[in-house]
């Protein structure tokens, strides 16, 4: 028992040895975190901190585990809680207050928690139904324009979406329908969607890369659903990752089906290295990082002055008029909606 306790006392995440834990700053995030090596190296060089990254599962899972371990967190900064789950993180006291240096550059429509500054917006994206252009051309069918189209007989058995209880795009899509049809209407809408043959799978990877006929992965896997709930930024990914590059994206976005997602980062409540954590948060809002994000994580910057790479802007413009929902409304109703949705659609 003595040896066990001895092992345990080395709780700090410092792996660099001699210089102590304070020179290492640990970022906890979800599996989609990505940054160009050179950009991160620049930060490490300028700040003197070594950045350690812990990717802890998908977005929801990473947030929940961070909350469970908040008394003794795995790292200093958490990146990747979005507006759909923000209230859960804030209500559970996951973050402490910090207003990063460049906070004023953040477009005001993305800001949240402005009285306490426990979270900082980092990126944004739109969750939208994507369509397989080839399928719709071959079948001489117009791609759906909005939510209303998805329940029409012409689109029967074409859509695959994610489990709203376990996947963040799945939840975003559900919230989009709730925003569009309101308390009285969304359940009715989903009943019709279910009757129209919507397929539900657990996660985005499975929906987009296995079931969807328009993505490179889905074509290979023999996916047979030409409509999928994904992101407005998925089409540029199909172009940029393709070899050879096609002239136009093989997939498109149904503009009237979008829900806006905003991702936040914050300094963890019991962070060991608060100074390093603050420096890291500052870095996430720098122009350099903000401009690096689009091609790494396929999201849009929140910094007004950040320039989006031309390819990205061309193939994946932001949705024109996405559905949105106030954070307090999401906080108040989310769990009940997910519960009703689960018994309505899955059971």
């Amino acid at each position, binding site marked *: *028992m003595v040896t*066990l*306790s001895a*092992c*345990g*006392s*080395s*709780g*700090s*995440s410092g792996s660099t040895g001699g210089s102590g834990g304070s020179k290492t700053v640990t970022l906890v995030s979800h*599996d989609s975190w*990505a940054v160009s090596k050179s950009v991160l190296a620049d930060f490490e060089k300028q700040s003197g901190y070594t950045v*350690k*990254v*812990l*990717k*802890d*599962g*998908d977005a*929801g*899972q990473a947030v*929940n*585990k961070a*909350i*469970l*371990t908040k*008394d*003794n967190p*795995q790292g200093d900064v958490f990146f990747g809680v979005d507006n759909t789950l923000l209230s*859960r993180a804030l209500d559970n006291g996951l973050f402490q207050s910090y207003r990063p240096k460049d906070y004023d550059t953040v477009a005001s429509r993305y800001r949240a928690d402005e009285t306490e500054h426990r979270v900082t917006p980092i990126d944004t994206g739109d969750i939208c139904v994507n369509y397989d252009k080839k399928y719709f051309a071959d079948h001489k069918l117009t791609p759906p324009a909005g939510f209303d189209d998805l329940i029409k007989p012409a689109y029967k058995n074409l859509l695959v979406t994610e*489990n709203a*209880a*376990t996947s963040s795009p799945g939840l975003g899509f559900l919230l989009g329908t709730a925003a569009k049809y309101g308390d009285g209407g969304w359940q009715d809408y989903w009943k019709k969607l279910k009757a129209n043959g919507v397929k*539900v*799978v*657990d*996660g985005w*990877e499975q929906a*987009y*890369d*296995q079931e969807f006929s328009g993505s490179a*992965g889905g074509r*290979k*896997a*023999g996916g047979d659903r030409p409509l999928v709930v994904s992101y407005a930024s998925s089409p540029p990914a199909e172009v940029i990752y393709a070899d050879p590059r096609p002239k136009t994206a093989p997939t498109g976005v149904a503009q009237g089906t979008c829900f806006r997602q905003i991702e936040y980062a914050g300094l963890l409540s019991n962070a060991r290295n608060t100074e390093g954590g603050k420096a890291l948060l500052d870095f996430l809002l720098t122009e350099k990082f903000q401009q690096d994000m689009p091609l790494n994580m396929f999201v849009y910057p929140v910094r007004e002055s950040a320039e989006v790479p031309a390819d990205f802007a061309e193939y994946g413009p932001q949705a024109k008029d996405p559905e949105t929902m106030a954070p307090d409304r999401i906080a108040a109703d989310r*769990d009940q909606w*997910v*519960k009703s949705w*689960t*018994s309505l659609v*899955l*059971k």
Partner: protein
Amino acid sequence: MDLARTEVAPRPRRGGNAARLGLMALPVAFFAVFFAYPVTAIVRRGLRDGGSWQWGRITEVLTDPGIGHVLWFTTWQALASTALTLLVALPGAQVFARYDFPGKQLLRAVVTVPFVLPTVVVGTAFLALVGRGGLLDDLWGVRLDTTVWAILLAHVFFNYAVVVRTVGGLWAQLDPRQEEAARMLGASRFAAWRRVTLPALGPAVAAAALMVFLFTFTSFGVVQILGGPTFSTLEVEIYRQTSQIFDLTTAAVLTLVQFLAVGAILLVHAWTVRRRESALRLVDPSLTARRPRGAAQWALLGSVLLTVAVLLVLPPAVLVQRSLDAPGFGYYTALTHDDSGVFLVAPVTAIGTSLRYAVAATLIAVLIGGLAAAALARRDAGRLVRGFDALLMLPLGVSAVTVGFGFLITLDRPPLDLRGSWILVPLAQALVGVPFVVRTLLPVLRAVDERLREAAAVLGASPWRVWREVDLPIVRRALLIAAGFAFAVSLGEFGATVFIARPDNPTLPVAVARLLGRPGDLNYGQAMALSTILMVVCAVALLVLERLRTDRTGEF
């Protein structure tokens, strides 16, 4: 073989209490700190709100139609899996017990391998067989991965050995002359079997069925990988409610439900095991097996071999084939690169991590389980100690997910601040290993003739010397077997490890599950390759055990 032995009458001994308590101290402390405390803490966290218990939430959760659906599915799939496993494996038990044929030893090892395979590997193997782009899909366009059939078949695969070993072990020792006598008296072949053999086998069949029911009732990795969003066992639902939906109350209630169910199953199991130990005329297994004679017997042997080939050999074979499905071992070499984006380390490092954890977990499990078995084996063991026997089995059935989460929220502050420590994973894995150690050692220790110990003591040997000179030589082999089981179980543990393994230090099963969750051929291929490696390590561990094992009456 100890079954045939007549029990030595217990003798009252002074000082037995102190010795017993001494032996029990460490196991009791271990279970209190690393099992009871974390599990209680997570349940408490879910059921307490603002300083008062929310017992009302229990009925609220249990009457929820979604949860009702989970309870119903958990129960019926476990019943169906158990029935199907018995149906498929009982002929196998008979063939192993009664027939002698070339390659029997090898075949016995082959059918046992699946039992020690990690659930993640089993899930992956069936995915490669019946999933999208799997073998059946390629050949005939048949996909079962979104149906309950994939789950049931994987459960049969996994538990075939439980039936063959538990039932077959006893069957081989039943005196065939009893059945022959019944036939001489005019009973038909079937009537003789039904009236004579079946009743004798009954308790063993019941014990095997209960073990299979326990394993399938608490199934996690298999359902997680093959089930999709609609199929969910209690264990999977606890995971979803905690890790994805963050409804700790529902998770706590489900944990209690599973706890009660598993407790009930174990009680019934203990009862059937006691009944199995009742007097039966047993003979040496080597005397009962004969070469098959006549068309019917050859047909039975043939059908068992076919079942084994299709159900037990094919899925791992497809797994291996898929892992090689890239030019020049491409998926294996890809494991050595750290740029996949899934982990921060090359997936191949998971092998070293897993082996290191498994060695530590094995040492802990053998120490704790060995002490517990020594205490339980004492003939003066009282009712209290025997009650502890059943308690030691609980980690087998109590949600590993709950244990993992409990670890995260309890072992993170002094004096037990283990959260940043690697030892956390081996500790959780050892919990699951201990029941196997106890169950392997206990029958052997109980079979040690008490008179040997007493003779040694009378001749002036110290208790330590008695143990070293009398017990150790007898149990050494059993100890190695127990260690082997603990090792295989630790290697494959998934439910608890998935939470507490640090993201930058995944074990093999965790790495496999995460690779499977990522898109793309390369990730899929790497998952197959890592699963193959894990399977080979487990199979080698088991084959070594098979060579050591002489006593085939064990419960696993």
